[in-house]
C-alpha cells in the first residue's frame, strides 16, 4: 500500500515538473512594460492598438514608481523583469551602477526631441532613455493679490510683508517646510548650488555647495522670512496647495503636475519665471520622464523598435500627454500645444539646471530638507543649518556614517606623530588616522585625548581636519617644531590642545595646571571650583616653568582660588604653595579688571595679580 503511494507521488510529481513550466512559459508577452498608475492608463490602449496592428503581444504592468526603480535589478536577473520601464531621469546613475539599463541610439529620431530632455537622459556621454516629458517648477501667484510678478526674492519678501501686515491674505509667499526640491530655485538665485561641475561638465560629488556663500545667503533670506513670521512650519505639499487654492497664500512654487488641481480649484493664478536673486535668475531643477530599456531584456531590439517606430510619433506622445499633462519632450506634440501655462513653465525652465542624476544625489535630499526645516522653525539660524547639512552630506557621500554629534566631529583635531603606530594606526605622521583623534571638551572647548603608550621616545604635532594644511607644534606655533615625548615607563599620556592659543602639550612634558576657584562660573564654566574646567587652564608656551592665565571678564567682587594639577583635586596647592593648603583670596575692584594667575612650578606658588 505504502509503496503504491510512493509510485503515485513520484508519477504525479514528474508529470507536473515537466508539464507546468512549459505551460507557464506561454504567459510571457513579447514585450513587457512597467509603468506607474498614471502612465499605465495611457499606455494600455496604445499597446492594445500596437498588438492588434502588428501581431506583437505587449503587456503593461502597473508598478509604483519607486518599485520600478527598486525591483528592476531584482526581477531582471531572475528573468522576470520588464523589457521597458517608465523612469525618471535621475534614476540613471543608480541603474547604470547596477548595469540594469542599456544605451539607446535614437538615430534620425533624435531631432524630434527637445535637446534639453535628451541631455537629461545622457549619462557619462551615453543616452540611456527616450524622454517623453520634461518638467520644472515655476512661480505661481494669485493675480488678484499680486498683480505683477515679482522680479526678485527681496520683492517677494516686500509683497509678503504688505499682504500679511494689511491682512489681505494669511500668507504671502509660502514654501514647504522640508522639501528641498522646491527650495532649490531660491538657493540658486542667491548663488548656492548642490554639486559643482568637474572639467567635463559633469556633476562632481566631491564639490558640495549646500554651504557655499550663496547657499548661506539664501538660508539667511529664509531665516528672515521665518523670523518675520511669514513662513511657518508644518507645511507640506497638500497644505501649501490648500492655502494657495483657498486664496490664503498669494505665491507658491509648484510644477505642471499641480495644474489640474489648481485649475479645478478655480483660484485665479498666473505663472511666471522664478524670481531672481543677487546671483542671477532663479533656476529650477529640470527633470525628465521617459522610457528605458532593461539590460536583462531578451528582446532589446524589439523594445527599441517599439519605442522609436511606434511611441516616438505624434499620436502616442499626445496620448501620454493627455493622461499626464507634463510638458512633452517630443517636439511635434509640444509645438502643437497652444497652452499658455505650459509655455510659461517652458520659459521658466529655459535657465534651469538638470537635476543631478548621479547616485550621490540621494544622500543630499534628507539633510538639505532638514536644514530648510531647522531654519523655518528657527531651531537653527540659516548659516548653521546649511553648514551642518553640508557636513552631513559630505559624510554620507564618503560613507562616513558615524551617528555622532557635530560637537564631537564638527572639527577634526588629530595627533600625527610617531605615537601613531603604537596606537594602531597604519603608519606614522598620518593626520587623518582616527585612532589618534582628539575630543573637544563641551564646557571649555579644549581638545583632549588620553592614550596608553609604551616606554620609548616619540614625536608628535597637532593637525586640524585630517590634513597637514593647518598644524601646530612646539610652543603652539603654526607649523612649528615637533614635540618630543620621552617615556621612561609605560604611561597613560594626556594630550591637550587649546584651539585659541594653539598651545599643544601633554602631561609628561608639562604640568596641566588649572586655577579652580569661586570665579569660574563667571568664565563660563558649568560651576565654581571645577579643576576640570580648562577655561582657567594656566599655560606655559615658552616652557620656563611659569604657568599663567589671564582674564578680564570677571565682575567686581571677592573671590578665592587654588591651583590644581591634572584636572582633579588629587594634587592641589593653596596659599604659600602648600599642598592642600588654604584658598587664596583675591578681589576684583571693578568689572572687567584684568586678572592674571601665575603658577611657579618650582615653588608650587599661585599668585594672582589684579589690575594693569
Amino acid at each position, binding site marked *: 500500500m505504502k509503496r503504491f503511494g510512493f509510485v503515485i507521488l513520484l508519477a504525479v510529481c514528474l508529470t507536473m515538473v515537466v508539464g507546468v513550466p512549459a505551460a507557464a512559459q506561454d504567459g510571457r508577452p513579447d514585450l513587457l512594460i512597467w509603468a506607474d498608475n498614471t502612465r499605465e492608463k495611457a499606455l494600455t490602449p496604445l499597446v492594445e492598438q500596437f498588438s492588434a496592428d502588428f501581431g506583437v503581444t505587449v503587456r503593461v504592468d502597473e508598478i509604483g514608481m519607486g518599485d520600478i526603480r527598486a525591483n528592476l535589478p531584482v526581477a531582471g536577473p531572475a528573468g522576470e523583469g520588464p523589457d521597458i520601464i517608465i523612469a525618471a531621469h535621475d534614476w540613471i546613475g543608480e541603474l547604470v551602477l547596477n548595469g540594469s539599463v542599456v544605451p539607446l541610439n535614437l538615430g534620425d529620431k533624435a531631432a524630434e526631441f527637445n535637446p534639453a530632455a535628451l541631455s537629461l537622459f545622457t549619462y557619462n556621454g551615453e543616452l540611456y532613455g527616450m524622454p517623453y516629458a520634461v518638467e520644472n517648477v515655476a512661480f505661481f501667484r494669485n493675480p488678484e493679490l499680486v498683480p505683477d510678478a515679482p522680479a526678485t526674492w527681496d520683492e517677494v519678501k516686500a509683497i509678503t510683508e504688505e499682504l500679511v501686515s494689511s491682512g489681505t491674505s494669511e500668507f504671502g509667499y509660502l514654501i514647504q517646510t522640508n522639501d528641498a526640491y522646491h527650495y532649490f530655485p531660491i538657493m540658486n538665485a542667491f548663488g548656492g548650488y548642490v554639486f559643482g561641475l568637474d572639467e567635463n561638465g559633469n556633476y562632481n560629488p566631491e564639490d558640495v555647495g549646500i554651504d557655499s556663500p550663496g547657499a548661506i545667503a539664501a538660508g539667511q533670506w529664509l531665516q528672515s522670512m521665518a523670523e518675520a513670521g511669514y513662513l511657518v*512650519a508644518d507645511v507640506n505639499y497638500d497644505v501649501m496647495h*490648500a492655502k494657495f487654492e483657498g486664496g490664503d497664500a498669494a505665491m507658491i512654487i509648484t510644477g505642471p503636475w499641480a495644474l489640474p488641481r489648481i485649475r479645478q480649484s478655480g483660484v485665479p493664478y498666473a505663472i511666471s519665471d522664478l524670481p531672481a536673486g543677487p546671483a542671477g535668475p532663479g533656476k529650477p531643477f529640470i527633470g525628465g520622464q521617459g522610457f528605458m530599456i532593461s539590460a536583462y531584456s531578451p528582446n532589446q531590439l524589439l523594445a527599441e523598435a517599439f519605442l522609436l517606430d511606434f511611441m516616438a510619433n505624434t499620436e502616442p506622445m499626445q496620448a501620454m500627454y493627455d493622461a499626464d499633462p507634463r510638458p512633452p519632450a517630443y517636439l511635434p506634440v509640444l509645438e502643437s500645444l497652444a497652452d499658455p501655462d505650459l509655455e510659461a513653465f517652458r520659459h521658466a525652465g529655459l535657465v534651469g539646471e538638470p537635476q543631478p542624476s548621479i547616485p550621490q544625489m540621494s544622500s543630499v535630499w*534628507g539633510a538639505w530638507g532638514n536644514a530648510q526645516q531647522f531654519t523655518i*522653525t528657527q531651531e537653527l539660524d540659516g548659516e548653521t543649518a546649511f553648514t551642518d547639512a553640508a557636513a552631513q552630506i559630505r559624510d554620507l557621500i564618503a560613507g562616513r556614517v558615524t551617528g555622532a554629534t557635530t560637537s564631537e566631529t564638527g572639527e577634526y583635531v588629530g595627533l600625527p606623530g610617531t605615537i601613531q603606530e603604537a596606537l594602531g594606526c597604519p603608519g606614522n605622521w598620518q593626520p587623518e588616522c582616527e585612532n589618534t583623534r582628539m575630543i573637544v571638551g563641551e564646557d571649555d572647548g579644549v581638545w583632549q585625548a588620553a592614550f596608553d603608550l609604551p616606554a620609548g621616545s616619540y614625536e608628535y604635532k597637532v593637525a586640524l581636519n585630517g590634513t597637514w594644511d593647518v598644524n601646530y607644534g612646539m610652543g603652539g606655533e603654526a607649523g612649528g617644531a615637533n614635540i618630543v615625548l620621552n617615556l621612561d615607563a609605560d604611561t597613560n599620556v594626556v594630550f591637550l590642545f587649546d584651539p585659541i592659543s594653539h598651545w599643544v602639550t601633554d602631561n609628561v612634558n608639562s604640568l596641566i595646571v588649572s586655577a579652580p576657584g569661586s570665579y569660574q562660573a563667571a568664565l563660563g564654566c558649568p560651576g565654581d571650583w571645577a579643576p576640570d574646567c580648562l577655561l582657567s587652564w594656566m599655560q606655559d608656551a615658552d616652557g620656563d616653568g611659569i604657568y599663567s592665565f589671564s582674564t578680564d571678564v570677571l565682575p567686581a567682587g571677592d573671590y578665592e582660588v587654588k591651583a590644581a594639577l591634572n584636572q582633579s583635586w588629587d594634587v592641589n596647592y593653596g596659599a604659600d604653595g602648600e599642598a592642600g593648603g588654604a584658598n587664596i583670596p583675591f578681589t576684583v575692584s571693578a568689572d572687567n579688571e584684568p586678572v592674571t594667575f601665575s603658577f611657579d612650578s618650582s615653588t608650587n606658588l599661585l599668585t594672582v595679580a589684579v589690575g594693569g
Partner: protein
Amino acid sequence: MRTALARAGVSTGAPALSSSPVGLILRLLALAVIDVFALLLAVSIGGDGNIFLALAIVATALIVTVITLVPGLWPLRWMSPALALIVLMALYPMFYTLYVAFTNFSDGHRQSKVEVAELLAQRTYLPEGGTSYTWTPFGNEAGDSYGLWLVDAEGNAFFALPDQPLQPVTPGVSGSGPYDEAGIPAQMDGLNVLQGGERFRALTTLQTMQFGDPASPVGIKSRNEAGAFVSKWVFDAGANTLTDMEAGIVYQADDSQGQFVAPDGTFAPVGYWVPIGLNNFARITGFFSGLSNFGPQFLTFLWRFVAAVVAGWGVYRFFGKTDIMEIWLVRRVVVPLLLLAVFAEPLLNLFDTLLPVPLFKVFGWTVAFALLSVLTSFSLGLFMALILNRDFPGVRVIRSLLIVPYAIPGMIGILIWRGMFNSNVGVIPATLRDIFGSSPAFFNDPGWAKFMILLVNLWFAYPYFMLLCSGALQSISASIYEAAEVDGANTWHKFWNLTLPLLLVAVGPLLIASFTFNFNNFLLIEGLIEGGPPIAGTVAPPVGHTDNLMTYTYRFAFSAGGTRDFGYASAIAVMIFLIVGTLTLLQFRLTRRWEEVGENV
C-alpha cells in the same frame, strides 16, 4: 497526561494512515501537489540564482513529506503548516539576513561575478576599421530565411545573407518590385522586404542572427545600426580578469571587494557581490561610536557606582539595626536623599556625556515608546473592558464601535491622524487654538511629537487589549470576589489584589508580545512623522527626535553613499536582533514570575 496523549496519538495515528485506500490516495495526491509546487518553485528560484531560498523551500517540502509519511510523526501533521511557514517566513529570512550581513550586497554589487560578466558581455563595439550600416530586413513567408539590405555611411548598399559574403547592390536597380524612396526593392533573392507587423515580429529572431562573411559576421546592434560588432567586455574565468577589448584594458577581479580593477585603480562599470567577512560589522562601530569615545567616562562612572554601593551597604550595615533608622524621616527621606546625592553626580555625568549621542537618544526613546505604548493601551483597554463588563443598554453596540480603530488598516488611520494633527489644516490644532489661543507644534516640538505618537498608538492599540481583557475577565470566577468581600475588601482592593494579578496571568505574555512589536514599530513612526522633527547638529545620517531603532537603522543603511547597502543594513539588523533578543529573554523571566502569581492564586 502527556503519556496518555502520546499513546492516544500513536494508537489513532498509525491506523489512520492505512484506514481507507481512498483516503490514502487523496492524501498522497494532496501531498504530491504540495511537493510538486514546492519543487517547481525551488527549481525556478534556484535557476534564478537564489540557491538559499530554493533550499529552504525544499527543506520545507521535505518536512511536510516526512511528517505525512512517517507514521510515528503523524500527530505532527497539524503542526506542519505552521512549521512550514516558520521555516519560510521566519527562519529563512533570519539566516538569509545573517548571510547577507557578511557580504557586500548593495547597489553596484547586486549580482554574482558570472552574472555581471554575462551582463557586460552583451555590450558591443565596432572594432577599428569596421563599418556601421543602416539596415532593412528581408524575409520569406515561412519566417525561416532572412536577409538584410545594408547601407553604409557613404551610401554604398549591400545585401547580406547568412554565411555569404556581402553582395554589393544598387538601389533602385537590384531586386525587383516597386522600389521605395531609398531605392530598396520589395523583393530580393526571393525574400520580401519586411514591413509593419512582419518586421516587428522578425526582430526577436533577427537580433540573434549573423549575416555576411562568417569571419567577421554582421549583426544588428540597434534599430539604426548593424555591423561587425564584437563584445566589448570579455571575462576570463581562469585568469579571473575582465578585458575591455575596445580600450585594451585588463581589469583584475578583486574578490575581496567585488570589483574588477584596472591597473590605474579604476573599476569596471559594474561590480559584483562577494562575501566580505566582518567588514560590515566593523563599519557598525560608527553606529556605536558614541560608546568608544566615552569609555573613560564610563569607567569613572563604574568605579564611582561600585564605591557608592559599597559605601551605602556599609552605612546600612552599620546603622541599619540602630534606632536611628526607626525614625520615619531618616528612613524615608534622609537616606534616599543621601543615596541620591551619591549616585546623582556620576549618573548625571554619564548622561551628560551619553545623551548627545543619537544612538542613545534613539535607544532611550525606543524603550520608552515600547513601554509607554503597552502601558497606556493596556490601561485604557482594561478600563474599557471593566466598564463594558457590566450590563447596560447598548453595551453590545458600544463594544462593537470601540473595536473599530482596531479594524481600520494601519496606514490609512495613520494618514488620517497625520492630517488631523497638521498645524495648518488639522482639526486638532485648530480646536486647541480656538480654546486656548495657541496649539503645540505637534510635528516640530520633540516632546509634543512623542506625545502625539503615543496618542495615535493608543487609538490603534487599546481595542486589542479591550478585547483581551474582556475575555480574560469572564474567566475570573465570581466566587473569589465573594470570598474577598467576606474578608472586607473594597472595590480598589479587589481590583488591585485579585483582578489585576489574575488578568496578568492571562494577558502577561501578550503584553510582552506587544512590547516587542512596539519596539520594532516602523510603520507608525515612519508613516506618521518620518522620525521627525530632525535633531539639530547631528553628523550623518540625519536622525530625528522620534526615530526608533528600526527607522534609525533604515536611515543608517539606506542614506549612506547614495545607494542601498543591503549588506550593511543586514549587519545592523543582526545587531538589533541581538538587543531585542536579549530584552525578550529578560521579559520571559518576568513572565515566569507572573505565572508563579497565577499558581499561587
